């Protein structure tokens, strides 16, 4: 049987009325779980896992696929509406998404995120199906030096987030990098900067810090300037979803996001969060209107949201082809597969094809279900914007405290969120970009652990970053993109004096 025949048989398995209902329920639960800070995609899936024990294997797998896809998307709803990322992967989308909400275009931003995310998810699954076997070995081409180079490449976004002062941007980014050093060092097992707190052994909870820097600081900001609070609520907020024309305008950003999401998804250890920030930066680089980024660009929502969802296909590559999960969500999927008798790994496609293709079919179908289920939930969420500002702010703070506490049941986490809220508020008043701190927080762990591991693998030689083609290319691009504006400026400075020195000095 060819791949297509098997896939058709898979659709037959997944497409029962009951299967569709369960899938839709999975998608809805995923979106809601993803929207609550503290319930990550992996936790949403793990909570759904026990309910799948009594289902047949096909239904169980498509339901988990639904939860996974839903959670990837759900995090961006509060990110766009309230500047509160529900999952770390949705943090990049709030940079422009929340700006759009402030301008009264919440529904458009949410619609773009839903449609583009779905497109990204769909393409990545199709690529996965077409290439799962050849890609399996491609995963192995990405070792520690490559992932380290990718993370360094991602850090160049600091330049884009810095606003007026690059120095303040670098300082804010370095602060984020420093924060990732807290906790039990995952490589050597030694304690760093934990100040005797047990809760800090596993490091600063990333979602607590993000929610603090973005959402809590925003609440303080609004409370401090009550005159402007009308802006947030934008009582006249339009509920118009994006038009086809607007969707066509973000086409390029969507494609950039898809490609970035696929590549980063395949890289072991990287993931949704890193991919969304890299995609944001790349979309800005390739955009016709880079000046709009950070000020409410639809492309700035489309790219990270596409990448965030396109990671799913890439994530599944090591999971299915090697039996080694690419992320926490993929680990739960792996557990579910094994529970139902499918052993992922080199023999996956030769041994147990029917169920694997049911999973593939389910992954495609859930992406189609995302749109109707997503629109239904979005309509409900948009009502939140009609709340009077004091009630809205109080509810958001309550959700933040409960959500960050619920994740690990550490009282320290909601306290961290509030502390980071104060820090973020202070940073905004003094012109330090909190987004750069979040970027450092997201990539710091990758940069550090992969750098150290690369140097162990190379017996201490830095040449490993030059002799390995993928790592060398990524680092060359990093240097190139950093130097390009400098060179351009130098060239412009040098050129004018020669042909026309007089007008230049006359100004």
């Amino acid at each position: 049987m060819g791949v297509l025949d098997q896939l058709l048989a898979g659709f037959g398995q997944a497409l029962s009325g009951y299967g569709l209902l369960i899938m839709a329920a999975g998608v809805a639960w995923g979106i809601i779980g993803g929207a609550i800070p503290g319930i990550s995609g992996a936790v949403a899936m793990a909570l759904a896992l026990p309910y799948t024990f009594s289902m047949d294997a096909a239904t169980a797998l498509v339901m988990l696929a639904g939860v996974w896809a839903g959670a990837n998307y759900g995090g961006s709803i509060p990110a766009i509406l309230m500047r509160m990322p529900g999952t770390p992967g949705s943090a990049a989308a709030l940079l422009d998404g929340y700006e759009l909400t402030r301008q009264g275009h919440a529904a458009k931003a949410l619609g773009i995120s839903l449609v583009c995310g779905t497109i990204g998810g769909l393409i990545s699954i199709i690529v996965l199906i077409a290439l799962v076997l050849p890609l399996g070995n491609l995963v192995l081409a990405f070792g520690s030096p490559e992932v380290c180079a990718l993370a360094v490449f991602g850090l160049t976004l600091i330049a884009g987030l810095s606003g007026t002062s690059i120095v303040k941007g670098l300082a804010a980014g370095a602060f984020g990098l420093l924060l990732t050093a807290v906790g039990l060092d995952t490589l050597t097992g030694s304690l760093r900067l934990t100040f005797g707190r047990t809760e800090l052994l596993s490091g600063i909870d990333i979602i607590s810090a993000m929610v603090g820097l973005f959402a809590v600081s925003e609440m303080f900001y609004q409370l401090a300037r009550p005159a402007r609070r009308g802006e947030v609520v934008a009582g006249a907020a339009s509920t118009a979803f994006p038009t086809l024309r607007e969707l066509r305008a973000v086409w390029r950003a969507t494609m950039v996001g898809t490609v970035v999401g696929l590549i980063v998804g395949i890289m072991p250890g990287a993931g949704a969060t890193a991919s969304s920030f890299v995609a944001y930066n790349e979309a800005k680089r390739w955009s016709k209107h880079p000046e709009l980024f950070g000020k409410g660009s639809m492309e700035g929502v489309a790219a990270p949201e596409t990448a965030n969802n396109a990671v799913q296909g890439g994530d599944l590559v090591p999971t299915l082809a090697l039996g080694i999960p690419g992320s926490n969500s993929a680990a739960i999927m792996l557990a579910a597969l094994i529970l139902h008798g499918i052993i992922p790994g080199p023999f996956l496609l030769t041994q147990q094809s029917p169920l694997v293709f049911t999973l593939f079919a389910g992954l495609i179908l859930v992406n189609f279900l995302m749109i109707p289920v997503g629109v239904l939930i979005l309509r409900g969420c948009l009502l939140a914007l009609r709340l009077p500002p004091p009630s809205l702010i109080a509810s958001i703070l309550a959700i933040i405290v409960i959500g960050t506490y619920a994740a690990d049941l550490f009282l320290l986490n909601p306290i961290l969120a509030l502390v980071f809220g104060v820090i973020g508020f202070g940073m905004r008043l003094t012109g330090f970009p909190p987004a750069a701190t979040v970027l450092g927080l997201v990539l710091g762990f990758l940069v550090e652990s992969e750098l150290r591991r690369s140097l162990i693998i190379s017996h201490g030689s830095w040449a490993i970053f030059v002799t390995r083609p993928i790592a060398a290319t990524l680092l060359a691009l990093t240097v190139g993109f950093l130097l390009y504006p400098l060179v351009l400026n130098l060239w412009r400075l040098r050129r004018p004096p020669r042909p026309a020195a007089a007008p230049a000095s006359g100004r």
Partner: protein
Amino acid sequence: MKVAGWMVLALVLVITAVPAYPGAEAYPTRPITFVVGFAPGGGADVFARALAEAARGILGQPLVVENRPGAGGTAANAYASSRPADGYTLLFAHAGSSIITPIITNQPGLKWDNFDTIARIHGEEEWLMVQPDAPWKTMEELVAFAKANPRKVRVAGSAIGGIDSFVVLSWEKAAGIDVEYVPHEGGGPAGLTFLGKNAEMLIGNVSEFFQHVQARRMVPFAVASERRSPIFPNVPTLKEKGYDVVFTQWRSVLAPSGTPPSRIATLAAAFERALRADSWKRFNSNARAVDLYLGPADFRRFLTAEEARLARIIEELGLRSR
């Protein structure tokens, strides 16, 4: 009528009150909380859930898994020890969460000896693997090569402070060699480094990599067990090669200190029987794990020896925080 009503009420009260008398051994009469120090879906969690499922049929009450992840598993220890010692709270524990992390982080109050031992359940064996094109056919050749080329052989494994790293460190000492240990966040990422040919050897459990062994992309070279493993009986133990290096990734059940002895006995017997349940056996063999049941007293003796041994290695590695 009224009298009858009172009588019924009295009867109901008496019936419902009986289990509350401490002497009356109807145990368990309600669900038992099973505290797991790892996130849902992770390796330890999956084992805990399978064990809970097998024990439910024997105890007649469900074991409800409560995940308390964080702090290297010790957050769960702190939580479990704060709950009443009435046999309705159990803690899933392994060497990392009940010995190594409490020692490294100076939290003696969270160590295993602050709990009552119920049973050691099972374990996964520690395998040293080599690349299929490795130039060494025997342990003697490998050790000779490593002696002649210090730090040349790279061994991928999980983080330093885990059992993986202890096996390699002890083997280095016993064989008088010096290898480069490449630590990772877990067994899976270590496997990727090895499969990508960025390390000459891999240390870890075989369950994650069984298919790769079958596909001849990993070759088991030695096992750190007391005896040869039924999984690959042709592969020698480190011990028979003259290196006294014996480690397994055991998993176990503890209870808050002061749990009534009769309930501990009930639980220990139930877990021993649970290991014979079909669902558990299937799960265990799929995971390539081996049963390592020890009752409360034997398990306590084992832990005393295990702690002394692990503490010595932690001291040598200089891992303890000051």
